[in-house]
């Protein structure tokens, strides 16, 4: 048993950015453990992905290819990757922590009698894996014990895609044996939820509101602040789940990813699902009553206080500064 296998995920026919981050994590782990890294592209037509990966500093690239992998299913991916892992017998299997990986990697690990260490943000010598707990309020360290491969998925943004070193590698193909009857679910064509009329991605200023606003009737106070600043209004998931603002204004892993000049978070605690959507902002301001809220870990400026007092005061201050 040796080596590190990193399973890449395809986005629009290419290797997705978070997969390069997973490869960076695998290379980091490779330096710590002295084990070679093998990149795996999986699907029905993986040539382009494999070629991209072969231009990186990896020991080898394997194409796991089968017609029954044309569209992702948890059964198809689990069956195919189980066979590959049994053949390669790696010490580590690294994934990007995407929605797709969350859908099959825990089952794949369990099928091999293993447990996925999911959503890892750092890997220290040992290796010791760090994950977030309690929605980012605390961190926890995990170590893998026992025999068998260690399964790890890496959080978006935790490793740098541009840290992946270039190189050249040989590509080989692994044809898994899959029977149609093994695939029990039938996936449909992906579709967009609703017509996007708000492009938060290009807004220079964003005021974003979270659970701290308590009820829909209180929204005007943040709307007034957004209007005073000339900013777009956005929200964290619970606000859109409640139907207080349309889904298209949601920032985070299930909504839009934004990086404005100014992101002003009002009453948002800063769960990771939200932070991944906005932490690339140039300047982040947090207004929250809880000084321990994780949003302050990414904020440049913070006001700890009651948003129902702070936000109207800020709206006045913005107006009088104009």
């Amino acid at each position, binding site marked *: 048993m040796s080596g590190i296998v990193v399973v890449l995920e395809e986005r629009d026919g290419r290797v997705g950015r978070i997969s390069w981050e997973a490869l960076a994590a695998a290379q980091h782990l490779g330096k710590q453990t002295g084990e070679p890294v093998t990149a795996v592209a999986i699907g029905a037509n993986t040539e382009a992905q494999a070629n991209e990966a072969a231009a990186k500093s990896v020991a080898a690239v394997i194409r796991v290819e089968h017609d029954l992998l044309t569209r992702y299913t*948890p059964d198809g991916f689990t069956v195919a990757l189980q066979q590959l892992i049994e053949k390669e017998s790696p010490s580590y299997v690294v994934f990007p922590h995407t*929605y797709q990986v*969350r*859908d*099959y990697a*825990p*089952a794949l690990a*369990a099928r091999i*009698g*293993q*447990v*996925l260490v*999911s959503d890892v943000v750092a890997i220290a010598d040992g290796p*010791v894996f760090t994950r*977030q*707990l*309690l*929605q*980012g309020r*605390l961190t*926890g*360290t*995990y*170590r*893998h*014990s026992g025999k068998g491969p*260690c399964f790890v998925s890496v959080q978006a943004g935790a490793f740098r895609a541009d840290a992946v070193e270039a190189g050249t590698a040989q590509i080989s193909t692994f044809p898994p044996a899959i029977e149609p009857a093994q695939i*029990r*679910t*039938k996936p*449909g064509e*992906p*579709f*967009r*939820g609703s017509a996007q009329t708000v492009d938060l991605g290009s807004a220079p200023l964003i005021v974003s509101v979270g*659970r701290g606003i308590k009820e829909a009737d209180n929204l005007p106070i943040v709307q007034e602040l957004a209007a005073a600043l000339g900013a777009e209004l956005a929200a964290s*998931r619970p606000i*859109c789940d409640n139907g207080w603002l349309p*889904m298209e204004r949601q920032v985070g892993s*299930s909504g*839009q*990813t934004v990086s404005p*000049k*100014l992101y002003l978070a009002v009453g948002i605690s800063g769960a990771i699902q939200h932070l991944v959507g906005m932490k690339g902002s140039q*300047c982040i301001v947090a207004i929250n009553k809880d*000084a*321990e809220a994780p949003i302050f*870990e990414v904020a440049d*400026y*913070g*006001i*700890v*206080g*009651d948003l129902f007092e702070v936000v109207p*005061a*800020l709206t*006045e*201050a*913005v107006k009088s*500064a104009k």
Partner: protein
Amino acid sequence: MKIIVAIKQVPERDAQVRIDSAGKWIEESDIQYALNESDAYALEEALQLKEKHGGEVIALSAGPERVGTTIREALAKGADRAIHVDATDLGSRDALGVARLLAEAIKPESPDLVLTGLQSDDLGLGQTGVILAELLELPHASLILHVEKTDAGLTVKRELESGWFQNIELPLPAVLTIQSGGNKLRYATLMGIKRAKTKEMRRLTAAELGAATTPIAVLESVGLPHKQRSTQILPGTPKEAAAALVEKLKFEARVL
């Protein structure tokens, strides 16, 4: 349809958490607990399916005695009966170990559908439902917002990333992990709370279930997160802090 909903009791969202003296978990004595958010949506989905198609909803939860209050809440909202896997050692089990306990409790019931939340608000591993499907040898789909019963089984709406969705067809029995936001949550009525007291709550112990395992990946220590940026906290009254912030944004950050 016989539906089992696996729910978890977690520290309340606004609970002020303190790391325990051993640095292994949090001080449990001084916090309030609540039903995990996405599990509340799983319960809601189960109750709506039962209202439409008939059948039975069984709430299942593992944990120490305090979990009983969360189970009662599920019964008050409309679950027909409950199973409490009485275990004080969940912290020393990994995701596979906990899922094995739940799977052993589920097997004798032979449900048509197993629902659970997408992930817990405390450990956030997001794996229990998917591992349950594997252990029960059932098909699954995760991140589900909507469930429709069909002649052949189910059609479910799965959330993808960045505002995309997908419909998936799957046969029954099956396991689904439910994303929050798909339904409007109900409150327990006074009548519901009253009736919950008379509903069956079966207690099983980990020893009875016989799912002892050696953990492979467990939490070793907890700590405070590293700050990613240095935050200037602006003090004073709301008015003073607001004025100071506008100054900073104009002349220091230069974003206004």
